[in-house]
């Protein structure tokens, strides 16, 4: 059984996490270093979420708490992405739980990336601050059942 039973569930849970948590972190402002939209294309269920950077702040090192550095476009109507990550819903879930080794996942084609991957790699070290937010978010939304047993954790 897949983590997200359909696209609506994925938009609600993963989209909600991006919208309500990720966008408001300090690390979110690093999207300006990428330099363009990032699209996540999902399989099983088929869905798509695009992170569209808002106009860069003059002082990105001092993020505003009133304005998120990127907005979300759910579905296929987003702008042309600079970077695309294609994966299935379960793999995305594991990634945001911090359980996926991206290098391994790319080598195993669990994640397929298109675009200047080096720019995305700049963000990777900063994701360690974001991973803990996902289980917290799932629990707060009453989705604690989606958390894996601790013994099964691996990257």
């Amino acid at each position, binding site marked *: 059984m897949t983590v997200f039973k359909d696209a609506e569930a994925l938009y609600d849970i993963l989209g909600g996490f991006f919208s309500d948590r990720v966008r408001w972190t300090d690390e979110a402002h690093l999207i300006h270093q990428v330099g363009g939209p990032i699209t996540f294309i999902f399989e099983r269920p088929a869905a798509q979420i695009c992170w569209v950077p808002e106009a860069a702040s003059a002082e990105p090192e001092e993020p505003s708490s009133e304005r998120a550095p990127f907005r979300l476009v759910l579905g296929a109507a987003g702008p042309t992405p600079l970077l695309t990550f294609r994966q299935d819903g379960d793999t995305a879930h594991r990634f945001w739980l911090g359980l996926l080794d991206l290098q391994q996942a790319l*080598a195993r*084609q669990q994640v397929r990336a298109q675009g200047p991957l080096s720019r995305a790699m700049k963000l990777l070290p900063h994701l360690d601050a974001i991973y803990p937010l996902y289980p917290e978010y799932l629990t707060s939304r009453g989705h604690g059942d989606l958390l894996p047993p601790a013994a099964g954790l*691996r990257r």
Partner: protein
Amino acid sequence: MRGRARPAGRGERGRQNQGGGVALSTQTIQAVVIADYDQTPQVEWVELQDPGPGDVRVRIHAAGICHSDWHAVTGTLPLPMPMVLGHEASGTVTDVGPLVERVRVGDRVVVTWVPACGHCFWCLNGAPELCETANRGAVSGTGADGRTPLRWRGQPLHRFSWSGTLATAAVVPESGVVRIGPDMPWREAALLGCAVQTGVGAAFGAPIVPGDTVAVLGLGGVGLNVVQGARMVGAARIIAVDPVAWKRELARELGATDTVDASVDVLTALLDLTDGRGVDVAFEAVGQVPLMALAFNAVRRGGTAVMVGVPMPNAELSLNAFAFPSQEKTLTGSWLGGSHPARDIPRLEALWRSGQLRLAPLTTHTYALHEVPEALQDLLSGRVARPVVVFPDAEAPATRARTHDPAQAEEE
């Protein structure tokens, strides 16, 4: 489908001029013929020429049916039509042509489908399964001389990879038959012609060391024999993957230690079973491109993926290129299990006799020649792993004396 009426006025033998001015004797036999792609195979009366130099005629007692036969029917394996299907069998040598040295009339033999020439580059370099002459004949549906010993409705009739064993008899090169002992049942011996050589041979040729973890994707006649081969070379864990539950159970019976339902996320399942590391060696035994990629993706760093299944000739495979150098993964192929039939079929027979190679569980579904279309449908639907056509006289005394599984006999 039933056999067509025997042609009126035609005897068991006739004489026919084959164009070169040489009159050759022929025998009228029954064979499963496909007239053209996507046509239903039909049992037809066809003419089979007497064996020429280096050829032998074999009366077929049992013949296996392979997915490749179906691919020939659909044209996904584009071979010349019309054609007699079948490329693995067992039978008795009834005639030998001039220059035949290794077999005699009355010998019990296995018919296999890569009759190596013995003197081309590949034969001389230890890879007779890649024999240039054999490959040319397989593609053309004829012999090395461009001719076929079969005629139907006055026209040349091609044969599947030198053999055309879904027939009451076949004329094949001497190097396409290997003698077997008097106690080997026909139906079990037939599988040595393709499925067992291909599956067991692939495992024997892979870099499996005792204690390894192996995954086998696809549990048809070939995949189940990969499982057996992996067991025999000492794999500690053999993970058998297939969507069909009874095939997974059969794989366990043949040596698999774990099974995975192919309808789940197989890659994640294989990683979970190996602490995220991946398997040491993975085999793809179906010929589907996504499964080929899966096999490669499922192996550990430094591991090997072996492609055994046969995809369409124009299929292309996309993989992560970085994984080759950065993870030292190896992607390789195996054709007929890298087998040298004259050397390896006796070895396989010895393994069967010792109980290490089990064939009886693979021959539980038998059919008459006219039931080949039904057998093909059963193969496609997953109802049977390896259909075997058994001919009326196949249950000869030697067979009746030992129709059981040696491994089971020991347990009893």
